[in-house]
């Protein structure tokens, strides 16, 4: 009985730590899909790109992967800015985002994945850092630092973005832009510029999320696909663009996956997110905290 109690407690801890990390993976999609209504299904591919960049900087210069991701953050921001410009000019402005815009992001997803395969092959890659390996133990509770550090970084990122979106002029404009573009213009703000900033920020978060991912697990180019279901499930369940909702949904999914792997085996975990997504779409499309 003692053993199953330990197992249970540790499954909860692992789930919460995993959920914290999922929050960082999802926050970019919460901004692009949840707030801006841009269905960027390539987001997980950009996260994997972030992982590989952290990997290169870690193996060649011995940089800490999370620090590395902060250094390349501006590059991701610029990439996001450029992608939005193409997206706006080619699809949004012409009202063709539904079919062709989706295909565009699907193409980007595919190109990124194939490029990574061409450069790095399909072998698993990993990084070195002091916190990968050791564990913090509190009685029966086990906190692997490999999970704890990403969870804390993720929560910090989450908190920073939440403050930014609710306390700054640009942040409030980002939250407003999908509600009423013309009204935003009447506040003297250029909605296209606001969207470009927001989308660039969403891609910038992929840099950090990527570094966290490769800290948690070794990666290969197609790992991103497993995250497509996860991020959109969390984003929809969290109520599209609501940051507190996203955090709660991420924790829930983390817990469910943790319990699934603990009691049924890790190979079943990817199916959990899909079940989440389908049930949400079928019964509560507005999410748990529906707007």
């Amino acid at each position: 009985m003692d053993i199953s109690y330990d197992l249970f407690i540790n499954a909860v801890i692992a789930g919460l730590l995993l959920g914290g990390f999922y929050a960082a993976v999802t926050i970019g999609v919460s901004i692009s899909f949840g707030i801006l209504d841009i269905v960027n299904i390539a987001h997980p591919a950009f996260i994997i790109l972030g992982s590989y960049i952290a990997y290169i900087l870690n193996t060649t210069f011995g940089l800490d992967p999370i620090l590395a991701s902060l250094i390349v953050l501006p590059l991701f921001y610029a990439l996001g800015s450029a992608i939005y410009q193409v997206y706006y000019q080619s699809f949004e402005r012409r009202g063709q985002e539904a079919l062709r815009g989706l295909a565009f992001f699907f193409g980007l997803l595919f190109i990124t994945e194939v490029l990574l395969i061409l450069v790095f092959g399909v072998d698993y890659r990993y990084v070195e850092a002091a916190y990968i390996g050791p564990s913090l133990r509190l009685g029966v509770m086990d906190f692997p630092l490999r999970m704890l550090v990403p969870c804390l970084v993720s929560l910090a990122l989450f908190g920073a973005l939440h403050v930014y979106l609710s306390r700054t002029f640009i942040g409030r404009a980002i939250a407003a832009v999908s509600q009423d573009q013309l009204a935003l213009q009447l506040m003297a703000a250029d909605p296209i510029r606001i969207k470009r900033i927001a989308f660039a920020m969403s891609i910038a978060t992929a840099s950090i999320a990527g570094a966290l991912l490769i800290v948690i697990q070794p990666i290969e180019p197609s790992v991103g696909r497993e995250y497509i279901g996860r991020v959109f499930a969390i984003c929809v369940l969290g109520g599209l663009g609501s940051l507190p909702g996203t955090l709660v949904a991420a924790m829930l999914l983390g817990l469910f996956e943790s319990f699934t792997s603990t009691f049924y085996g890790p190979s079943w975990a990817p199916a959990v997110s899909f079940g989440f997504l389908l049930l949400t779409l079928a019964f509560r499309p507005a999410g748990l905290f529906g707007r």
Partner: protein
Amino acid sequence: MANSIRIENIDAAYGAVRVLEDVSLTASDGETVALLGTNGNGKSTVMKCIMGIVRPSAGRIVAEIDGVSHDLIGRSTEQIVDLGIALVPEGRRLFPRQTVEENLLLGAFRPKAREQIKKNLAFCYEAFPRLAERRSQLAGSMSGGEQQMLALGRAIMTAPRILLIDEPSVGLAPVLVSRTIDKIKELKEVYQLTVLMAEQNFTQAIRIADRGYVIVHGKIAFDGRSAAELNNNDLIRKFYLGL
């Protein structure tokens, strides 16, 4: 310093449908001018032309802000707002999923407005105590009257010199209409604004208007040089109800 707006002979069309024909009107410094007429006659389109939302096919629109003239045609909406012209749009167009306070703060997006944000916010809460009580409530959950107050407050937050208001009475019960009209007068006096107001509710509008125009089928049908001239109810009845 003077703040005024002058529209000279504008035409406007949606596709092949002509909505405005040779419309000219002015609102001089410190005036409250009413643009009267029933729905579908082009009042909103005049407002949209001034704000750069609809581009006139002919004519000129010139605004004088603090004594400096600006040609408005060809400028984007956000540039026009940034000059110091605010529009309270038809249907209010609040940000429904943001709180009252966030809506007000969004009004202060332009750099000039950010300088006066404290003063203007305090004024809004003083002028509209309901907004102060409900500052953390979502805008979309408020009643029609409260939403209209918020829309006015949000426009004031942009620190305008010229205020345009499109149909403040829409969807409001009669008692709220007169309260809203009183508030517009109060705002105008405190901030020394130049006001152009499009309104269907004739009786309410001319209570505070210095002058007014009646627009029928896209043309200025009557140019009332004074409030007294506009008070000729029979004439208005003819224009309004087609009697």
